[in-house]
């Protein structure tokens, strides 16, 4: 059972149903039913043409649903009344699905789950597990999202930035349970890049690959976090890095810099360094400056302070930090790190403990507590 094939076929099959006159919500439900049916039966009897099989089964499901609906409500005409769809290629259809699922009328959380189901081809159960909510809750969230975009025409032009933000959110959720959201985000970005030639799409894909390449080295066997400087760089995935760097270079050559390309450039500089000491921190700071000009996200300046602390010394980092809002997430952790680099171990230990109290994940809290413990027990 080739699940990746099934998932890749989800958007084109949904689009075909819509072109035949199905509404998006009905088409999406029908395709979801067909996917479940495929998972159940393909191992026993694999179809010769998987896509045609899915279209046939999904279309039949759609008609069944319409008939049982119309039996109750007499809405048979709804299908016939659909406007004649224009001649569009399958490729454009898939792209339109991305736009629809990331539509600005959706909340980010709704856009994410709708994208994962309608474009990613994940089942409601899988999406629910990935976000650790009950399946019934997730089913409701998805159907509400579909109602929200019910009136949006599938051929309306969309903004690629909204799609990229959704994929970035999926990627950042990382890994919980049986669905690897980071890998799924990469797959969706890859698929999007086939549909759409845009330097920020390549930039986002590069950024994801460059971060994903470091994943194995980011946690110790006991589950604790390993900071970038201490990661075993021999465990980095060099193929993913090479692909990310190549994508980034091609994107930068188009001379339309954007947020994701700038972030990817920073990730590439880290990936390029054989050791933490060999990192080109001056260039990293320059890229943070570029990034700060592109976005008003204050976390960029926080990260810039860290980079500056490496490029020009911890005092420079602390000076840059002093200009920022203390209530920023990780502010205290960054200050602790810079104080430690500056040799003020007592203050650093105290700040690490405070930062641990403010952490918003267990892994981060444990990591920061360990940092405090390391300095406290060394001082004893």
């Amino acid at each position, binding site marked *: 059972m080739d699940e990746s094939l099934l998932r890749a076929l989800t958007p084109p099959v949904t689009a075909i149903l819509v072109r035949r006159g199905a509404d998006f919500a009905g088409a999406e439900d029908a395709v979801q039913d067909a996917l479940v049916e495929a998972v159940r039966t393909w191992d026993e009897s694999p179809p010769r043409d998987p896509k045609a099989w899915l279209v046939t089964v999904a279309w039949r499901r759609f008609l069944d649903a319409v008939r049982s609906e119309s039996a109750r409500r007499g809405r048979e005409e709804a299908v016939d009344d659909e406007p004649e769809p224009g001649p569009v290629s399958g490729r454009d259809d898939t792209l339109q699905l991305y736009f629809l699922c990331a539509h600005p009328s959706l909340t980010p959380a709704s856009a994410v789950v709708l994208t994962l189901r309608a474009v990613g081809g994940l089942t409601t159960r899988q999406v629910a597990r990935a976000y650790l909510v009950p399946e019934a809750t997730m089913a409701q969230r998805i159907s509400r999202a579909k109602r929200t975009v019910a009136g949006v025409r599938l051929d309306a032009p969309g903004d690629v930035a909204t799609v990229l933000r959704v994929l970035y959110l999926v990627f950042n959720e990382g890994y919980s349970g049986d669905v690897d959201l980071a890998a799924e985000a990469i797959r969706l970005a890859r698929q999007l890049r086939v549909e759409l030639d845009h330097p920020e799409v390549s930039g986002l894909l590069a950024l994801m690959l460059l971060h994903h390449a470091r994943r194995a080295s980011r946690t110790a066997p*006991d*589950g*604790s976090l390993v900071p970038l400087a201490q990661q075993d760089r021999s465990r980095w995935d060099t193929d993913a890095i090479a692909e990310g760097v190549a994508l980034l270079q091609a994107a930068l050559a188009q001379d339309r810099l954007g947020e994701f390309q700038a972030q990817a450039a920073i990730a590439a500089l880290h990936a390029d360094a054989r050791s933490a000491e060999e990192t080109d921190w001056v260039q990293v700071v320059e890229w943070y400056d570029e990034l700060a000009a592109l976005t008003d996200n204050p976390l960029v300046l926080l990260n810039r302070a860290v980079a500056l602390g490496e490029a020009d010394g911890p005092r420079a980092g602390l000076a840059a930090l002093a200009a920022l809002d203390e209530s920023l997430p990780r502010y205290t952790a960054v200050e602790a790190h810079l104080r430690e680099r500056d040799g003020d171990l007592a203050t650093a*230990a105290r700040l*690490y*403990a405070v930062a*641990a*109290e*403010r*952490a*918003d994940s*267990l892994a981060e*809290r*444990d990591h920061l*507590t*360990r940092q*405090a*413990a*390391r300095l*406290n*027990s060394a001082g004893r």
Partner: protein
Amino acid sequence: MAKYLLLKHYRGAPTPVNDAPMDQWTPDEISAHMQYMEDFADRLRDTGEFVDSQALRPEGSWVSYDGEGRPPATDGPFAETKDLIAGFMIIDVDSHERAVALAGELSAAPGQGGRPIHEWLELRPLMSAPTTVTE
């Protein structure tokens, strides 16, 4: 089966025997503690008694209805609040004795010096659905 909530407190529980804040332990002692907690939860998953486990951040606020057309009133966090919950675990076990035994086991997690913390955990039975046969 009966469900129980095991509550861990930041504040408000009686002082444990081995009372030292975690940042005063060694990193290895922290690792040993984490491993103990994880092994404990894994064992309960194996026995089919684990339901859920979550950690809570220390800060929070009080919220209440403040009348028609007005935004909810918020207050706090109150520094003097005596009771502050740090996290919980829900278990589904055969008997109260089993729940007590498990809470005792969790409380023996190693702390500073590798010695058991003897942390006081609050054990609260969850209300259950009414049984079918009542007479």
